[in-house]
């Protein structure tokens, strides 16, 4: 059983890394799409001869991304009611992720015997905040007619599982380790440094269960909406009007795409021709209705 948990845990870390890389590659290698940008204010098109002027949007984009990810700014602006529990949940989660990172680092570099209980306060606060936010979201999802509509039933299970994971974590820290930071850090040090492999193969139930839950989340994360949020800034659809200038990389990719075949079967589309040919034919076919 312990071996299995070990396999699942390290396997899930590997899976997480591979899935993230694959998703990133899939996203980065997607064909360039037509320019379908949205603008939240003035753009380069407000200038005459705009193609001769440069506009650096990287700083603007990075700052909107940071505000969005750290503070869920768009939710705050557009859906304040939902933002309260949502932000509680996410802020708690960010603190919890940082707390785990701190646990791993300080277990290795500090003297675990003399660790103060500040770490416990941090972890407990983060867990509590995440839990309260999660409960708030779940309740709103169950009671608000707009939030219920089209929400897939399986997602309710997801929220319940999140709450169980948090409870499992609190149980491990407060019951198994008796809220003792030295005991917790000593355990983590053993895990991180592989000091006690026998212990790894026969872990105690509470930490084992928590590790199992965490593994499930590692497998799920690459497919979660958090990742979608990250990707949205890199597909030239929001706040990123990069124009196609002569001789640019964009133009090079456009040329490649125009060599692709048009595969649609509408009555106005000829069979077996490339985009370049179809778009520039002098007298295109016409009419509605199927071929």
């Amino acid at each position: 059983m312990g071996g299995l948990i070990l396999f699942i845990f390290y396997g899930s870390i590997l899976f997480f890394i591979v899935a993230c890389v694959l998703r990133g590659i899939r996203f980065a290698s997607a064909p360039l799409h037509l320019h379908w940008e949205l603008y939240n204010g003035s753009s380069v098109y407000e200038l005459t001869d705009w193609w001769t002027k440069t506009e650096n949007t990287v700083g603007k984009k990075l700052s909107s991304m940071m505000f969005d990810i750290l503070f869920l700014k768009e939710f705050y602006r557009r859906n304040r009611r939902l933002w309260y529990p949502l932000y509680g949940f996410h802020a708690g989660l960010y603190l919890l992720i940082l707390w785990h990172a701190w646990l791993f680092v300080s277990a290795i570099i500090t003297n675990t015997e003399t660790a103060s209980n500040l770490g416990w306060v941090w972890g407990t606060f983060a867990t509590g905040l995440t839990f309260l936010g999660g409960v708030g979201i779940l309740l709103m999802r169950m009671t608000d007619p707009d939030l219920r509509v089209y929400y897939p039933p399986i997602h309710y299970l997801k929220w319940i599982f999140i709450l169980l994971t948090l409870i499992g974590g609190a149980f491990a820290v407060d019951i198994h380790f008796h809220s003792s930071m030295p005991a917790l850090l000593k355990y983590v040090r053993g895990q991180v440094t592989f000091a006690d492999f026998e212990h790894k193969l026969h872990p105690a139930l509470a930490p084992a269960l928590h590790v199992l839950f965490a593994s499930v989340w590692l497998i799920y994360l690459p497919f979660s909406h958090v990742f979608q949020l990250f990707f949205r800034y890199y597909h030239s659809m929001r706040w990123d009007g990069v124009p196609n200038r002569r001789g640019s990389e964009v133009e090079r990719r456009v040329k490649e795409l125009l060599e692709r075949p048009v595969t649609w079967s509408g009555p106005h589309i000829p069979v077996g021709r490339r985009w370049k040919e179809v778009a520039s034919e002098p007298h295109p076919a016409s009419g509605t209705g199927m071929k």
Partner: protein
Amino acid sequence: MGNKGVRLRDMSKGADEPLLTISAADLMPLPRPLDQLGTRPPIPPLSENQRKSYECALDGVSALTLPRPQNKEEEDKLVKRFLDGLRKLLSQNDNWTFWQPLVQSLGSCVRCQTCNDACPIYVSSGKQEIYRPTFRAEVLRRLINKYIRKRGKILSKLTGDDIELNWPTIARLAELAYRCTLCRRCAQSCPLGSDNGLITREIRKLFSQEMGIAPKELHDTGTVQHLKVGASTGISSQAFENMVEFMEEEIQEKTGKRIKVPVDREGADILLIHNSGEFMSWIENPVAFAIIFEAASLSWTLSSEIYGYEATNYGTWYDDVQFARIALKQIDVAKKLKVKKMVMGECGHAHKGLIVIADRILADDMNFPRESFLPLLAELVCNDRLKLDPGKNDFPVTLHDPCNVVRLMGIVEPQRQILRKISPRFREMEPHGVENYCCGGGSGFAIMSSTNFKDWRENVSSRMKLKQMIDVFQDVMDPSIKKYVCAPCSNCKGAIRDLLNDNGLTEKYGIRYGGLVELVVNAMADIEKPFIEWEG
């Protein structure tokens, strides 16, 4: 009566009864003087014959005049074609033009419904379920989950994604793709970046590019006519040249000036390209451009070449292939004329289409410089290249922002700089700029009038704009006070014209509409007669 209890699975119900019939009481109330509810149905039902001939089981309205299949075999064939199209939509190779934002939009929605209140159609309709901006996206998402994904049929049962794909579903979805103006206000408000406007356009595209289903006004008498004759209005080169002569007569009559409008002037700095609807319905708009450009001594020209006198590109709204064909032909004209750049006149979708979207299908010498008339006009007005007397525009003016120019292109300030300079009583509608509301005629609706669609447009998709126009002039409704809605876009003008006329707002309350350049010419100090005609 409205029906807010419609469920996604109802899309596949037998096609005898519509999912929704809107009554006057369902609609969002309007402010005074239009606050009295009529008793007549806002959208007249289709005739018995029309109901027998066309699919109308969504909401009793027919935008597509989609014929009913004759038998089961035909239905099955249509379902198969739809599935083929759906697979292509999700394939990087088949749908490179929009694959990435489509997949992103389908995958990122968390069903927070934040976009709902941003949608003027959903709100104006009294929040009818089928017009919820997430409704059609969710139908598509569930069809994909069930019929395209591996083991989808089993998983859809487990996850509650179950929706049946049959002909009624497809027919309703085709109509539903034309109950959204693609204003993308919902996309702007989505915290996760999901674009329901894009999903709607992709559904339209599937129907057009795979099944040959599109509104006749957009395809047959739209892009097809455009490619055949040279303009979606059907204007030929010869007819265009006659219109230019008429423009010159108009200029002389209105200003006393004799101007030779430059046509096909090789090597000019600017090729000005108008929506050809301006020549048919609002000749004063190209006339005003000519007066301004001549007064500023610009090097410019119009083109009488086929495709050179038409800025529209209806493919923007429903079909990538037709879009690419038209855009390339327009660019080719400018290239042959050896002008330095193309400048779009007052047409919103031509701005977005040719300047922004076409950006990713142009390379080498076809990657031709293109820009909006707005920055150029702002330079002329703000740098005193024209002699202006703002006192001549001493009446309340408001600005309608075309979605394609503001939210979809980021041109927000130049038009305001101009209005602040020439109209002392300029006032903003709320909201405005990138948060504006669509005129209701976007994505082709302004020119679609088959069966009862125009009634639907005026009562539902244009209702928010109607409310905004009344609200902004609420303190000056006295008909003796002239009021001007400045709408620098042909399609928006068409929708606003119908709203003002059909609600008696011009006749009873003195609200008139027009473009931006007309206001500029009206303020020109050396023109004695008012350029804007308030009567007629």
